[in-house]
């Protein structure tokens, strides 16, 4: 502990959603600043977060900064002395700039000649002297999704200190002693109630709980060990994991007492979130009227989970019970006292939901179409009514012509036309996250077949507001194709129409979520067989072009440039999706070389390349392929191969191999057996190798040269049609 660094930034309640990121950031930034200030952490940088504190600890750090030694070079020696051998103004200027006498300069030999130099040696400060600057840097470095003014400033020349929430105390210890540090306050705010924040050896426990005395008193600590012990006595569970485990345990035991269960796995995100809303978690059980169980399960769950952060209790068979569990920031002596109030909120919300549910049903989705006129989609693209028309036509076409399922086309058209009508319901107005879901439920209530209502229900997946996964085959049942058609049509229409309206995603700015839309489309197509049972490698180019036909009015035409930019954008999303699935960057690059974009084909090719990487022939051919590509670029005459000009044994052999393997490669590719295609391609290795050893491509004779270049180009095109396998070679070659 004699060289332990302990920092606790005491804050007013941080938003739970920031905490995982802030915990990581704190460790990273502290490490970064320590390195910058040349104080080596001699143990891991640990960081912790509760709603009221950001804590970092390093068990041991260096006692002093490392000394800084550097040699600064000045003017050349040739220009440093005048005719009399006295230092020139340039030489004296250099010395002055370094703050030393001319005599203290040395000389430095370089290949370019001899230069004046100053060997600078700066002794490192002791850690305690350097640490304040490090903390100041860390406070500046921490990035928050939203920061605030709170009348604070630092004395580091940069003035105001913005932060995520006001800082109320600073525990700052090195080797058990306080490191002095001050956060100042704005002159026009400072006064008896707005004071500087001085670092100290004090922390604070839970806001309301204390074993003795008044809660919220300051607690003095000297080490991390003591800090943890005191906090734990004062009802603060410092580690997120410990809070989480405790919540999971308590949820389970409470649910058992109610003869029910809680879906811990399904609510894993919620558990993580509530664990960051409390310092000392406890659980209380509440109930609501059985009568509300007539509401759709989704509405009940949304009310409990998204609006209240409460956990629904289900029966052994998974049916909702009229009970919920609430995580609280205390271990209550009288659970009912809290539960009664929680029940009042839940009941209020469910009463509203029931009112919306009943009132929405009075206007069927069909009659809501006209109300979409008043909902603007985009000023250049008109209302959601216009979008509904485009969507309907596109979804129908996708179902029939792209997914090859004419029997689903009419259902897809109907689902797409009604898909956005739930935006006019009171339920969606109040529970935004239920958009799509509630439309699907209303469609079901109003007698639409499964193919239609499920397509509406799941339309936003796989990139929904809450869930980020596609629906399963089991969930979709007979609606698999209509869902894919509607969901795809919606995303493609949004992307294409907004692109035509001049909207773009640039850098971190993507106000219309174009990236997300394309991501969703790519994910559907990439897993099409698994999701829908339809094994089709869909090319995006024609789909985008068809979608573009649907948008008219004041938008830009779908030019070649726009189309190419859109495909490049889509290709980027395919690469991202493949990388997310664990493919190496070189495999991903190799598999996405095609100009048009087919996510499923790219995925399969990536899988096949991955499987071929153990093949020595394939690796060797990949190296040779780079040469093939380079030399084929020299080709000037574009005609077909002049076979009679191929005369030498080695080139003849390569041509024979090509002739023999081409049909097999093409046949394998046609049945999407890319592994078989690549095995055939790998078989070309010996012939290509021999060709490069024995044949001089750039022959003087024009006819011979053209034929050889054309042979190379044919080989290139055959392989490139599948993948640019030269990408799999490590870049050092």
């Amino acid at each position, binding site marked *: 502990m004699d060289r332990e660094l302990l920092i606790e930034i005491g804050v007013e309640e941080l938003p739970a959603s920031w905490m995982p990121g802030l915990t990581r950031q704190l460790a990273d930034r502290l490490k970064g600043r320590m390195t910058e200030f040349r104080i080596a952490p001699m143990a891991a940088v640990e960081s912790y977060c509760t709603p009221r504190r950001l804590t970092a600890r390093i068990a041991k750090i260096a006692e002093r900064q490392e000394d800084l030694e550097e040699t600064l070079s000045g003017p050349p020696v040739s220009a440093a002395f005048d005719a009399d051998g006295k230092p020139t103004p340039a030489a004296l200027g250099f010395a002055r700039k370094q703050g030393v006498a001319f005599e203290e300069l040395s000389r430095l030999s370089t290949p370019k000649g001899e230069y004046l130099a100053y060997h600078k040696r700066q002794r490192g400060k002791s850690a305690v002297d350097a640490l304040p600057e490090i903390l100041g840097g860390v406070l500046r470095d921490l990035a928050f999704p939203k920061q605030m*003014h709170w009348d604070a400033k630092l004395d580091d020349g940069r003035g105001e200190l913005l932060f995520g929430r006001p800082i109320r105390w600073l525990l700052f210890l090195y080797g058990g002693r306080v490191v002095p540090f001050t956060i100042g306050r704005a002159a026009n705010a400072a006064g008896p109630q707005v004071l500087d924040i001085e670092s100290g050896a004090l922390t604070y426990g839970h806001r309301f709980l204390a074993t003795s005395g008044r809660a919220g008193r300051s607690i003095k600590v000297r080490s991390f060990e003591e800090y943890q012990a005191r906090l734990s006595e004062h009802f603060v569970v410092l580690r997120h994991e410990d809070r989480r485990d405790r919540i999971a345990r308590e949820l389970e035991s409470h649910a058992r007492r109610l003869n029910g269960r809680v879906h811990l796995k399904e609510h894993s995100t919620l558990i993580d979130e509530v664990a960051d809303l409390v310092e000392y978690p406890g659980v209380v059980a509440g109930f609501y009227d059985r009568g509300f169980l007539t509401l759709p399960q989704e509405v009940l769950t949304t009310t409990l989970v998204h609006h209240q952060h409460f956990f629904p209790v289900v029966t052994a068979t998974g049916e909702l019970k009229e009970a919920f569990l609430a995580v609280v920031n*205390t271990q209550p002596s009288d659970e009912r006292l809290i539960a009664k109030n929680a029940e009042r909120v839940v009941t209020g919300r469910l009463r509203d939901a029931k009112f919306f549910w009943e009132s929405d049903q009075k206007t069927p989705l069909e009659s809501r179409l006209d109300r979409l006129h008043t909902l603007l989609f985009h000023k250049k693209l008109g209302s959601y009514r216009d979008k509904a028309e485009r969507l309907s036509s596109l979804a129908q076409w996708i179902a029939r012509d792209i997914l090859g399922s004419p029997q689903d086309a009419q259902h897809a058209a109907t689902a797409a036309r009604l898909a956005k009508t739930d935006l006019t319901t009171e339920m969606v107005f109040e529970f935004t996250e239920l958009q799509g879901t509630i439309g699907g439920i209303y469609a079901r209530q109003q007698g639409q077949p499964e193919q239609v209502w499920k397509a509406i229900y799941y339309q936003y997946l796989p990139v929904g507001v809450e869930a980020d996964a596609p629906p399963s085959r089991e969930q979709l049942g007979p609606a698999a194709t209509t869902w894919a058609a509607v969901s795809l049509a919606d995303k493609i229409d949004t992307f294409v129409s907004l692109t035509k309206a001049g909207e773009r995603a640039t850098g971190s700015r993507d106000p219309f979520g174009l990236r997300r839309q394309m991501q969703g489309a790519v994910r559907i197509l990439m897993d099409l067989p698994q999701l829908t049972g339809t094994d089709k490698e869909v090319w995006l180019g024609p789909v985008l072009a068809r979608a573009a036909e649907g948008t008219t009015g004041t938008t830009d035409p779908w030019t070649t440039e726009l189309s190419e930019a859109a495909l490049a954008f889509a290709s980027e999303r395919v690469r991202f999706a493949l990388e997310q699935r664990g493919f190496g960057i070189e495999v991903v690059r190799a598999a996405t070389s095609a100009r048009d974009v087919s996510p499923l084909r790219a995925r399969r090719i990536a899988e096949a390349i991955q499987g071929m990487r153990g093949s020595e022939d394939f690796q060797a051919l990949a190296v040779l392929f780079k040469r093939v590509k380079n030399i084929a670029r020299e080709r000037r005459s574009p005609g077909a191969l002049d076979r009679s000009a191929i005369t030498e044994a080695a080139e003849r052999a390569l041509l024979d191999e090509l002739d023999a393997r081409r049909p097999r490669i093409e046949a394998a590719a046609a049945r999407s057996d890319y592994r078989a295609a690549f095995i055939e391609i790998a078989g070309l290795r010996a012939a290509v190798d021999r060709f490069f050893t024995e044949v001089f491509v750039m022959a003087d004779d024009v006819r011979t040269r053209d034929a050889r270049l054309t042979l190379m180009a044919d080989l290139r095109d055959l392989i490139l049609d599948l993948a640019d396998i030269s990408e799999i070679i490590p870049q050092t070659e």
Partner: protein
Amino acid sequence: MVTLQQLIFKLSEFWASRGCLLQQPLDIEMGAGTMHPETFLRVLGPAHWNVAYVQPSRRPADGRFGENPYRLLKHQQFQVVLKPAPDDVQQLYLQSLEACGIDLRAHDVRFEEDNWESPTLGAWGIGWQVLFDGQEITQFTYFQQAGGIDLSPISVELTYGIERLTMALQDVDDVYEVEWAAGVKYREVRHRDEVEQSKYAFGQVDMPAAEFHALHRDLFDKYYGLAQTLLRSDLVLPALDYCLKCSHMFNLLDASGGIGVTERTAYILRVRQLAIAIAKHWVGEKAET
């Protein structure tokens, strides 16, 4: 048992003892206590100011004809503004709850992220909703901007929902069952007002809907013009009065279905421009409206 009026006494007493001036509600319809000049204008500029007051707040779209036990067209906010925000404002706030008779150790009181924004006022702030056993009882906001102007020093605004808080303290499930004073229920005091105001807000009047909407649009325009005139005459406070009138007319049009979605944005923008011009005048910058 703490009655509704006792709660107001206790909060008033608590904040007066902490140096707040006790102000009165503004005698004009508004959606929230923030629009009262004691908040909207006082948070601007450098002068320190601590104030507390009750503000009846009208939200026509929340009208439920006196039938919903939780939702009201008109509710009462207890508003506290502290400028600059004191370092111990959270503790002060919690003490005010204790002063109202809440045992903080027996309940679950939490500060959960809820940043406040009012597009019509060009104002926003960072803060929380304070949850009392899961029920929102207070909006707690560090103002960052008002009337489009960056604030310095920073003010904190505490808005207590009087009805919600009383319901929790009295453990009743129906706002109309709340004891306003000993032996007098909320129903007796306010129910008829809720029914009649809801009918008006949703256009259930002896006048065709189109005419009803046209009348309110016309009122909006007239109030708007008057506010501009007042502002040109450097009469900032009367101009704010009529800006609030506009905002209320807009809320009525919105509730009664008198405006479409795109038009809605345009109305909000107009009120916002007025609010921004008023704020600029208040701090001494003349601006065009």
